């Protein structure tokens, strides 16, 4: 297929699927799910193809497509993928089919699948657009499907949660629009053409000319929007409600994909557009990140609602990601990006499992579950693996990202990293405690009869667990595709603003052989032991 057309196809294929579903007659409701699965799976396949076709040595945007859209306003249809966005796209492509397969809606299946597919289009659009307005459009429009998913198929308190989610996030992005316009209009004055444009790349290249203070204000307006989406402490409180009330698929997508819109935005539109400002505010942001790590963990420990607990664990994990991003060096940013994918997989899987339990027990209260491992060993085993990955056990995906983040952060801001590392302890605390309360112990009558995973659910968990292990053992394919883009980003920042990305200074390569040549006399002066 023609390279430049693949991205539009990826973005709009789910939408087409949604349209198709809309046209299905109510009488033939059995075909709804197959169609939804098929479209999302096809999209997933395309994203995988994209990953395969992606040139891993090229740090620049690939598969770009640029056509004028709203000329008078300088808005263009500009999409492209680079190492930074690639795996988020793949993650989206992978998670959606799984989420759709995993759980069936109790009612109004048609609307349900339509919204999910629309949501997928929105998320893909966010990750792929290289035009500020285009990005903003997708960034805003994802609220609608998620709002309806939570509102129509959520749990008891869904209206409150949905509205809170909608308004909170909208409030965040409200100011971003102003910031965006300010940026573009100011850039117009500096640009040689005098034409207004929202083209990300052009704006980024002229980023140096912005007055420092202005740039900082604009950055703040962006950062706020993303901070809410991430969410960064203290603007995180929409998240537990939304996650808890959302239907399982909703939570999976929310945690797996939508939170990444924020962190992705921070990289793509924070660091890239505002090198100086992002460095200026970095201390603020990674401090908040570290607070989030500890705070999220502490609050999670005390939750009585299993889903809520997982939700708060997201706060902690995303704190790590923010910390990595704003240590502004290769290790940190790559760790952050990697962790985005990892968190998507592990937390997505966790929400799926919690959802499975909910379908069986119709409760999320930890206190009402006990000894489930007896009743459902397979479920428990999968849960253990996912949990350990979320705890950051080496050999599973969670660890690699976390370590890279810590390495980057440590190089940049030692003490923050030291504190953040303590989050590792807490993570173990709340998850293991929850696991103990839910799965260990002797099951009572209510829990003894709980059925184990069925084949469909196993089918869903298999790829997730597989990826969790694979990325833990062999993350290289991901990292090596990210690296050129990340380096390009850092170089861009250094060019624009002439600062040195904090990093380890080069050391001579050496090994035991060299060591011997260096100290060939060692061991000779051994005084005899006796």
């Amino acid at each position: 297929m023609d390279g430049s057309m693949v991205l539009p196809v990826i973005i709009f294929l789910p939408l087409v699927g949604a349209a198709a579903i809309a046209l299905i007659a109510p009488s033939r409701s059995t075909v709804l799910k197959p169609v939804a699965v098929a479209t999302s799976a096809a999209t997933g396949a395309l994203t995988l193809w994209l990953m395969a076709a992606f040139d891993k040595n090229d740090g620049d945007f690939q598969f770009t497509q640029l056509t004028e859209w709203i000329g008078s306003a300088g808005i263009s249809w500009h999409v492209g993928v680079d190492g930074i966005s690639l795996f988020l796209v793949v993650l989206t492509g992978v998670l959606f089919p799984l989420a759709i397969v995993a759980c069936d809606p109790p009612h109004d299946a048609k609307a349900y699948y339509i919204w999910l597919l629309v949501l997928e289009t929105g998320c893909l659009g966010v990750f792929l657009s290289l035009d500020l307005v285009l990005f903003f459009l997708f960034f805003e429009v994802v609220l609608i499907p998620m709002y309806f998913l939570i509102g129509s198929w959520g749990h008891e308190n869904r209206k409150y949660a949905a509205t809170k989610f909608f308004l909170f996030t909208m409030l965040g992005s409200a100011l971003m629009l102003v910031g965006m316009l300010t940026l573009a209009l100011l850039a117009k004055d500096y640009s040689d053409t005098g034409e207004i444009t929202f083209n990300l790349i052009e704006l980024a290249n002229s980023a140096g000319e912005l007055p420092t203070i202005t740039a900082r204000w604009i950055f703040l307006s962006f950062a706020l929007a993303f901070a809410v989406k991430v969410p960064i402490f203290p603007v995180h409180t929409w998240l537990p409600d939304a996650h808890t009330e959302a239907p399982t698929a909703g939570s999976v997508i929310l945690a797996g994909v939508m939170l990444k819109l924020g962190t992705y935005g921070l990289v793509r539109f924070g660091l890239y557009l505002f090198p100086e400002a992002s460095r200026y505010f970095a201390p603020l942001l990674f401090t908040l990140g570290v607070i989030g790590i500890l705070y999220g963990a502490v609050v999670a420990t005390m939750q009585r609602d299993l889903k809520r607990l997982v939700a708060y664990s997201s706060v902690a994990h995303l704190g790590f990601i923010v910390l990595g991003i704003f240590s502004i060096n290769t290790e940190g940013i790559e760790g952050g990006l990697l962790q985005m994918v990892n968190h998507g997989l592990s937390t997505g899987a966790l929400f799926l499992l919690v959802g499975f339990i909910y379908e069986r027990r119709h409760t999320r209260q930890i206190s009402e579950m006990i000894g489930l491992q007896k009743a459902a060993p397979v479920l428990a085993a999968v849960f253990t693996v996912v949990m350990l990955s979320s705890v950051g056990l080496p050999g599973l995906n969670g660890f690699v990202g976390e370590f890279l983040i810590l390495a980057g952060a440590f190089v940049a801001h030692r003490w923050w990293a030291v504190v953040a590392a303590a989050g590792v302890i807490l993570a173990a605390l709340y998850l293991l405690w929850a696991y103990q309360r839910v799965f260990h112990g002797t099951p009572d009558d209510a829990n003894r009869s709980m059925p184990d995973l069925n084949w469909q659910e196993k089918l869903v968990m298999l790829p997730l667990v597989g990826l969790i292990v694979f990325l833990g053992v062999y993350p290289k394919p991901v990292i090596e595709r990210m690296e050129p883009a990340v380096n390009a980003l850092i170089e861009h920042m250094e060019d624009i603003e002439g600062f040195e990305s904090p990093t380890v200074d080069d050391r001579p390569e050496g090994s035991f052989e060299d060591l011997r040549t260096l100290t060939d006399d060692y061991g000779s002066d051994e005084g005899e032991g006796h």
Partner: protein
Amino acid sequence: MSTLVDLVWLIPAFPLAGVLILMAMGRRLGEPRAGWLATAMMGGSFIATVLVFIGLVGHEGDEREIVVTLFEWVPAGKLAVDIGFLADPLSITMALFVTGVGALIHLYSIGYMHGDEGFSKFFIYLNLFAFSMLMLVLGDNLLLTFLGWEGVGACSYLLISFWFTDEANASAGKKAFVTNRVGDWGFLVAMLLAFLTFGSLQYGEIFFDLEQNGVAASTASAIVVLLLVGAAGKSAQFPLHIWLPDAMAGPTPVSALIHAATMVTAGVYLLTRMNPIIAASHDWVPDLIMWVGLGTALMAATIAVAQNDIKKVLAYSTVSQLGFMFVAVGSGAYVAAIFHMVTHAFFKALLFLGAGSVIHGMDGDQDIRRYGGLARLLPITSLTFVAGWLAIAGVPPFSGFWSKDEILAYAYGENKVLWLLLLITAILTAFYMTRLVLMTFFGPPRWTDEEVEAEADEEAEHALPHRHPHESPWTMTVPLVMLAGLAMVAGVINLPFASDVHFLGNWLKPSLLGNEGHLSFGGGTQWVLAIVAIVGSLGGVSAGAAVYIRRRIDPARIEHPFLARAWRVDEIVTNFMGGPGRRAFERTTQFDEQVVDGAVNATGTLVRRTGTKLRASQTGLVRSYALGIAVGAVALLVWFITRAGF
């Protein structure tokens, strides 16, 4: 050059294969085939290790560090970490006894876990543990070691809470993992600091860089201290030792393999591995290690005196013995540390398996007060147990004597007070082990005696009226016998008499990079010290006999409650966690609900309230609307009048 050494990757590959196979078809294999498969894998792994060992011996004395890299693991920016194995004397020594003892314990487990519904799962975990342990040992960089480090932690978590239906086991597992995590934090930060300092995590590169460019003593000290935190967590040193006694909740083979022979020694291994950095750090750092070790050793020994659970006694003795090893490391006696590690692996595994056999025979009862006179009924067990007892008590020529003596010698060289306290610890060791042996195998059988039972009922939840203690199946006794043999003769691998019989010492030299400490005094002093040690241990034994056979002193006066309650360290920690700690957590949660989220909802209500207030202005009376318009008009006029010129 040598192909044999290149086989090093096989060593962990075997258990890993075991894990995968069992995961795939463990259920179908069922008992006992699953167990045999796992054991076979460990055997294979042991053989591979031997081959590598042979290959390594084939090398020149100072070219015995071979790095075999499989593939790049985390290549990100300046950080480049491989999945690579370091085959050098130290790692292979460790690998040898890990696989060897491991294989035996696997075999033992086949019998021990007979009839357990989680039979194959148990062996999955065991193999997984062996794999992680070998990664820990063989990894050629800190990160890979850390992988093994955390892996063994996770496995111990899984194995401790293996019988998860009992809450106690579950929380013991959690406690172990979380406490370990505290240590891991130290390890993690140490790695970060090492990465920042040396720009790499590979041992070779770190040491090379250290040798060539040196490093600030303060940095080195920081790294070591952080590593010490990690090591203390894993090797159950004060104050992170609290998890180990609880860990006895797991099946006994687990205690033997993980919490005696292998995992808990990882801390010692790590410190030994990083010896160049210890050498590069301030002088107080080794001393710190030393005193931590000593303190732990002494404290644990005193506690062991007062324990009544056979496994608890052994657990505290393990803690104490690990303390010895730390003292050795601290005093630069790395060889002694490893030596003691090896011998300890043998006799402590032996003791645990013996204990397991006893428990097995006593249908799961672990309270030594209800034992007694089992020697007749469990002949093999008791014989082998005695061997282990003599070994740990430090009675020559049993292995324990040699290693402990060497440590004492170095301690003496470092600091006389230290030596004295360590000696006391050794005596205590002899004492409480004697107590254990006597109460278990000799004296009148108390397991039929009603009145003791009645008294025991108070703390033991189940009294067992009619018991028929019986010897264990051969799968369990064979390992006992083999380990007993090793425990007796293992001393020969490092005899002090002359440098050329100081095999282990010479063998380990390349790994120690010339940082091995040297005794500052001549052979004469050593003889004296050795004799003192012997006397001490014999004294301990006889004291034990005096108390527990002849009843010269009322045991109750020795088994002081304060000791029985493990110096209350555990309680203090628990009280803190359950008290202030928990309260702080709850406060934070309330803060989140009431302040952070409260602010959000408050904004909402505020907006709503304002709306309602404004609503009052909409009276529905046309004249007040008109008034509004008029007021507006006046307002505009007022604005414009300010712009008018007069």
